[in-house]
């Protein structure tokens, strides 16, 4: 993951979002549209910052793609657009629609588990 650059992330994201590879270098926000597990049309918009890739940048990217951090290398190098769509379609709309909502949902779950 250390060797990732904004350009290499743009190339991977273009493949995952099904964007025309020729337009990858001009695109900063990649949109992946899916149907959620509860049947709602949702989309995930991933932006690649043009400057640097820090380890935290990749953590954020994993969060946005709703994958575990240790899965990210495989996702960026090998997954197809169809694989990512199938993965995202497992989640309900409240998880896909908004990252802050998804984080609040995770915090709520963690707090609920702690309370038990």
């Amino acid at each position: 993951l250390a060797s990732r650059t904004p350009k290499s992330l743009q190339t991977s994201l273009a493949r995952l979002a099904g964007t025309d590879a020729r337009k990858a270098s001009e695109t900063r926000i990649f949109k992946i549209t899916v149907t959620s597990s509860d049947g709602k049309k949702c989309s995930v918009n991933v932006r690649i910052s043009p400057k640097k890739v820090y380890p935290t940048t990749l953590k954020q990217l994993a969060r946005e793609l709703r994958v575990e951090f240790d899965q990210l290398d495989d996702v960026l190098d090998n997954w197809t657009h169809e694989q990512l769509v199938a993965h995202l379609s497992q989640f309900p709309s409240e998880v896909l629609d908004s990252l802050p909502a998804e984080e609040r949902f995770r915090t709520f779950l963690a707090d609920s588990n702690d309370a038990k």
Partner: protein
Amino acid sequence: VSLLEREVDLAVPSELNPEDGYVSICGALLLEGQRWEADGAHFIRSTESEVWGQGDDLDDAVGDFVNHAIELSHHLATQILQGDATEHETQVHALLAERLADIMATVEESETRRRDAAIQLLRLRRRRFREANTWRPAPRSHSRPRSLV
């Protein structure tokens, strides 16, 4: 590590213990969020939308955050115009468009105030130095050269 250094370390917000706040432009709210430091860099994540920013220092991170908000707003506007926007994207665009419009109004107001103040200052100076704004004939040595014809 001294006690003082440890206290300073504790004061630095981390991803697990971020600092709550908001990003504003010219005093007008853009988005609420959380900031923290990691990998020798600064990060800001909005708690209202998927906007976030990163940078070598806090100013850099704020700049990246603002750019992300503007780029996302533009991207979502395009999606809406093309009829491809989801319900959530339309809501996020409405929020960003409202905040950016407020910011534009604030910036415009501040520019008008600054321009009015500059004009007022110019008027005062003109009044004060009115006497200096007079025509003075050039000294004889600087008068028009005589014709050699």
